[in-house]
């Protein structure tokens, strides 16, 4: 495979070593070179037929030089030595220190486990088969839910080929697949319109497109779409919120995940900046960020700085045990990198990013949590979230859920924003169920750059969050 990647990017090991000498020529302490070739193919269904195809190809290399936590970065979309040398020399300019003659280390392969083997390539699942799979999905959706008026569906697969070398000699090649299906249904009933979206995404090949996946999509839409017509908004204000298992993991991503990314802490701007080793929530709570979940959207064999994929315990039985580090922050804190140095593409320098972030199981049931609430809401379907790192205020938008009245789910609710404060919300988790699930939707984190992630959680009870709603 390695030889193929050298061919793909048109360079040799000697070329890499020569570039490294250029990158370090102004006194840089560390440098890395990241080659990438990503292809994406997508089929689009609209008005019952697959009538559009899209493909993209993106190719280039980025060169980073670090000196005293400062970063010089440049990239080139051509990988001939003249352009790469130019990029290396620009990035080298971040340093301006006395330079001793340097030699580049030889290539030392990084050892890692493959967390995303492709069991069935896309060449096997031909374009005709893909068209048939989506078209059948569309037919079954209309059949299962007669209120559906329109369906749009996109089926996408991408392959990212990466080759990496750094000034420590670390060298790796990685092939990162991603297959995704995303659909939106628009329904009409009694003169009213509603819409509902659904997605699934994995680091796998075409083996993802099974009958059971299609059955699951149809069942989800058939169950969830029609109740939206009867859903309303609750009376807004502070109230207990039961977060259902799975996609409620967005709470972790927004409420604490970003605040644990060590670049914010290195700059002292995170609300958790001085809390390492402290108890920050109930001992029932353990939160991990994991790059090793096989086939998961957030999985990484090796991060974009050459650190093998790993599982990082951020909160262990209520105690803050680790930030999420890239090389710069790990050096700042004097700890080992955690494999969270990620980048959207060769156009960007790596920064600390989450992978698959989830909470481990607690000790009760979801029913126990709902029964314990006299008046509040239950939510389990979300579209997006956001956080203000310094204040710790996070929000997430609830597409659908239910009122809880006297321990029972009553009326459906929809289209409400929930807002809370990260440390406070963590401290206010008073119950954790034993039903943790990783959600496999197309979660994409947009912290300066876009990166695929996933999130998950068991059902939890937060004793108080601010819920959007009517004032009546």
């Amino acid at each position, binding site marked *: 495979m390695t030889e193929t990647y050298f061919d793909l990017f048109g360079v040799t090991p000697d070329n890499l070593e020569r570039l490294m000498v250029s990158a370090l020529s102004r006194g840089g302490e560390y440098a890395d070179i990241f080659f990438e070739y990503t292809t994406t193919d997508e089929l689009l269904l*609209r008005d019952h037929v697959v009538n*559009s195809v899209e493909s993209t190809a993106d190719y280039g290399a980025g060169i980073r030089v670090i000196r005293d936590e400062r970063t010089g970065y440049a990239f080139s979309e051509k990988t001939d030595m003249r352009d790469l040398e130019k990029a290396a020399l620009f990035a080298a300019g971040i340093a301006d220190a006395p330079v001793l003659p340097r030699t580049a280390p030889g290539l030392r392969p990084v050892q890692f486990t493959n967390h995303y083997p492709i069991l069935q390539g896309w060449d096997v699942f031909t374009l005709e088969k893909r*068209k048939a799979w989506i078209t059948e999905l569309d037919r079954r959706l209309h059949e299962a839910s007669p209120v559906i008026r329109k369906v749009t569906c996109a089926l996408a697969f991408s392959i990212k080929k990466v080759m990496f070398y750094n000034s420590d000699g670390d060298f790796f090649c990685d092939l990162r697949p991603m297959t995704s299906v995303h659909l939106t249904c628009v329904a009409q009933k009694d003169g009213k319109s509603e819409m509902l979206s659904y997605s699934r995404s994995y680091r796998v090949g075409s083996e993802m497109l099974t009958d059971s996946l299609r059955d699951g999509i149809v069942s989800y839409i058939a169950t969830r779409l029609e109740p939206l017509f009867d859903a309303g908004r609750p009376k807004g204000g502070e109230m207990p919120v039961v977060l259902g298992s799975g996609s409620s993991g967005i709470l972790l991503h927004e409420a604490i995940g970003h605040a644990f990314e060590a670049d914010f802490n290195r700059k002292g701007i995170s609300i958790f900046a001085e809390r390492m080793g402290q108890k920050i929530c109930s001992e029932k709570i353990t939160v991990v960020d994991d790059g090793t979940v096989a086939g998961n959207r957030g999985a990484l064999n090796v991060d974009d700085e050459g650190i093998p994929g790993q599982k990082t315990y951020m909160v262990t039985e209520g105690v803050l045990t680790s930030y999420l580090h890239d090389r710069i922050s790990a050096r700042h804190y004097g700890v080992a990198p955690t494999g969270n140095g990620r980048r959207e593409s060769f156009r960007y320098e790596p920064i600390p990013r989450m992978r698959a972030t989830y909470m481990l199981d607690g000790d009760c049931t979801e029913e126990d949590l709902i029964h314990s609430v006299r008046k509040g809401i239950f939510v389990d379907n979300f579209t997006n979230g956001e956080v203000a790192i310094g204040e710790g205020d996070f929000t997430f938008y609830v597409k659908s859920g239910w009122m809880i009245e006297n321990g029972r789910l009553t009326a459906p609710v929809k289209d409400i924003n929930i807002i809370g404060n990260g440390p406070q919300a963590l401290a206010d988790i008073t119950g954790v169920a034993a039903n943790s699930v990783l959600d496999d939707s197309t979660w994409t984190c947009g912290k300066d750059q876009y990166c695929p992630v996933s999130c998950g959680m068991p059902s939890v009870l937060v004793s108080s969050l601010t819920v959007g*709603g009517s004032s009546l």
Partner: protein
Amino acid sequence: MREEERKIVADALQMALDAGVDAARMCIEASGENSVTILDGNVDGIMSASSRALYMQLFVDGHYGSFSTNRLDYADLREFIRKAAESTSMVVKDPCRTLPRRELCYAGDSAGELEQCDLSLDQMGIDERIRLAKGCAEEVLGHPKLISVETEWGDSTEYEYMADTEGLSVSNLRSVCTLSANCTIRGRGDEKPEGGWFDSDVFTGKVQTEGIGAKALQRTLDSLGARKTRSGEWPLIVENTCSSQLVHPLISVLNGAALQQDNSFLKAHIGEQLFPEAMNIWDRPRTRNNYGSRCYDDEGLATRDRAVIDHGRIATCFINTYYGNKLGMDVTVDGPSLLRFEKDCDITKKPLTLQDMMKELDKGILITGFNGGNFNPSTGDFSYGVRGFLFEGGRKVRPVNGMNVTGNFIRLWQGLLLAGDDALKSNRWRIPSLAFSGLSFSGE
């Protein structure tokens, strides 16, 4: 360099015809960008980049495909186009996919007409970029409340050339420069409030270089002690920094895709006088010296001034060739370029500042930023997190945060009371501060 890019487009069109396509459109985009980041007064990062990619739409015997690549070596490109044409021919035919009608396309000198590029950027060195960003940081360094200040100078230049097999040939050149500052200060307990400010312009010399850091710090200091206020119905003012967020949902459901998919809460109201007479939003795409201006859209359709909301009446939908064919509607353009809220018939008949507006309303919530939230395009229902100030007696009383505002966009805009005269030139859409009658706020 530009001749080289024109040649790539011309050759790629020929490659597409050689591969069996009936018609094609190609657009090459070439950009260069530079940025300098200063953390607490010291250089934290420098970046330089140049990119070039070719975007293509292929029409093969009634089939349609859309493609892009930055591998422009001719052997690679020819193979990419051959495969693209092959996969295009395998999807279901769609007779609505056509190139735009020639008479609707732009044919002038866009770069000359819009003058939206600072050619002197080529001469700007990294030392000057560092000086500007450092100067911004120095305005606030040493303040006792300050934890961290990050400032950045960034600039980019973009050239594009678009041509199709029906004779379209248009190009444009534009630039933008931005100076920004973000401050983090000590708040209550572990809280570290943050805030920012920025200015941008097409021309380096027109970017405000003094006062950006100071304003970022002042806005952050003003937010100290923010907390929720009681839930209830409050009149509101949305500051010019974020009022565009209330216009975006309207625009997004007036495009062809939303209308054709019945995913638009405004579809049933097109042409109606739905909103107050004072609501007057125009698209002014040919505004000179403005980054967001454009003479043509993504398929070459010529832009022109249009009333989008004309004295409360929904006057324009954004319909490209495909959705025009599908819906049987007149083709306009694919979206707005420079939206302006125009006040030729404002209720008050006089220029208004933010302070004037608070006095007029006497009491309510001033929103200075949104924190998350979303809206339902089918119904217009929305719910957003907000921060800002409680005001009473026409004056800010205290900062608020951690609250949600919830409502419906039709009813929100029907309750428009006042529009300020304070639209920011640095924002892509020129929407001033806006005042509305009561909405539901959820807090304590």
